[in-house]
């Protein structure tokens, strides 16, 4: 067995990776989303909606060619960390959290990112996207591995999210109605900056279902289906419903603006069926890296956040 010292991942390396993930997320569109939007642009028949989709495709290219952030609204940069059960960090996990904060402040100055984060009451801005509970780091764990995976995500902050306590009597129709409600609220005038990935959390507690909806929107790639066939079927039914709304990009008439629907579930109170929905905009800013104890870093586009272990059922 290696000692803890030789086994530990360097906190300086984590700071560098946190910077680089913010940079990559801000500039380059992940292939799943880029392909989805290009496909929508090709299929769109309404000229106003087609114009918008073609400008979005062009913007992805300008961002990469000129190394500019694809969207200036940095949203709220945040991190997801998947920690191997056998992983260790030099200085402990407090060092990881400090490294991630420093990497975010560095990226804000040098990418640059818009310093978007302010105190909610005084509106004070440190101009670095760091502050109280910011950036958040959400953790999950993975058995039998010694790496750490970090995902940087720049999540929009104002529109396109909602929560509601439904009940078993509301059933699947209740889910469909709420899905339409959130589209009615936020696709009109393009407030969700659709085309969007629709993430839905069903069950759990209020906070769990809101968290799952956001993770479903942000951390699964376009085309991914939930492994439960019944949930996968509902994802596809809602994709179809979304297309039929005729609400396209910016809320103009079109062939629909749902890139994909991702549903995650959690066991919940026997009397209730809480639901939350999040729309993730087309300027989807996400990058993932696996950091090994030997200092190796592998960057990739798919967060692979929803592992079998993360979705585990039963006692073991």
């Amino acid at each position, binding site marked *: 067995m290696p000692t803890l010292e030789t086994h530990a991942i360097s906190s300086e390396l984590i700071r560098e990776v946190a910077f680089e993930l913010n940079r990559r997320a801000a500039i380059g569109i992940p292939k799943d989303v880029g392909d989805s939007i290009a496909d929508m642009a090709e299929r769109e028949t309404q000229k106003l909606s087609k114009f918008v989709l073609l400008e979005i495709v*062009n*913007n992805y290219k300008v961002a990469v060619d000129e190394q*500019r*952030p694809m969207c*200036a609204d940095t949203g709220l940069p945040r991190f997801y960390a998947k920690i191997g059960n056998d992983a260790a960090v030099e200085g402990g996990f407090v060092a990881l959290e400090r490294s991630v904060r420093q990497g975010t402040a560095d990226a804000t100055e040098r990418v640059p990112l818009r310093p978007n984060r302010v105190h909610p009451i005084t509106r004070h801005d440190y101009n670095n996207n760091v502050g109280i509970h910011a950036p958040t780091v959400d953790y999950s764990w993975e058995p039998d591995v010694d790496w750490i995976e970090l995902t940087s995500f720049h999540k929009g902050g104002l529109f396109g999210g909602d929560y509601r306590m439904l009940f078993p009597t509301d059933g699947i129709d209740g889910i469909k109605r709420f899905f339409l409600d959130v589209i009615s609220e936020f696709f009109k005038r393009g407030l969700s900056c659709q085309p969007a990935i629709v993430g839905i959390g069903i069950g759990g507690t209020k906070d769990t279902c809101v968290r799952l909806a956001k993770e479903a929107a942000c951390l699964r790639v376009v085309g991914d289906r939930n492994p439960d066939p019944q949930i996968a079927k509902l994802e596809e039914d809602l994709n179809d419903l979304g297309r039929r709304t005729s609400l396209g990009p910016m809320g103009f008439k079109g062939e629909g603006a749902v890139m994909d629907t991702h549903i995650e579930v959690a066991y919940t109170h026997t009397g209730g069926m809480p639901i939350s929905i999040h729309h993730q905009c087309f300027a989807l800013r996400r990058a993932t890296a696996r950091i090994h104890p030997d200092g190796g870093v592998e960057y990739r586009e798919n967060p692979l956040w929803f592992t079998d272990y993360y979705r585990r059922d039963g006692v073991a």
Partner: protein
Amino acid sequence: MSGTADLKMKEHHLTTPATPEDLAKLELGDVVYFDGLVFTGRIGLYKKLFDEKAPPPVDIASLTNVTFHCSPAVGQNESGEWEVAAVTATASFRFEKHLPLLMDGHGIRCVIGKGGMAQEFYEKHFKRLGAVFLNTVGYGIGAQYGRGITGVKDVYWLDELGIAQAMWVFEVKNFGPFLVECDARGNSLYQMALAETNVELGKLYEGLPLPTLKRMGEVHNPEDEVF
């Protein structure tokens, strides 16, 4: 009113300040690019100017008549010059209270933003002044807009308001594309679009019952808007 399928979507290249004749020519759905000067303003600036009644840091009317509800992703190069990498609009409907003060008091006749404003607001203010509202496209195509900003002429109240809320004066060239949402006669592209999309949306609600538990203060008709 004809439908969005009939829009001509003509392209216009305007120099700031835009003349009343320039603005009168713009039709719904037309595509506009600017050369000249454009300044940013959102709630931080508006509170300072109109709630605190601070004297403007510059004579706005002599600068330009084009404002933009946005803030930049901006950095400083080695010689200390600001370089704007990208800009993205913020939703404009929140500025109903202050925008008429900017338009009437400082000569603003072009407002660039996100989502447009209410029809009544256009009729009350934009039509009266022959002003236009232009929507950014997408809305998140910030890199393209960043490319149209060739320099920062000035930035005001940076220390007090921070980068996101400060008043930035951009030098722009081929800055766009922007879509005409409200023309100088008070017509709105979104009113046209909503009339079209509400038809399909309403049909999809048929047969889906209201939720068991109601909430206070809600909009229940899917044809209505949330603001």
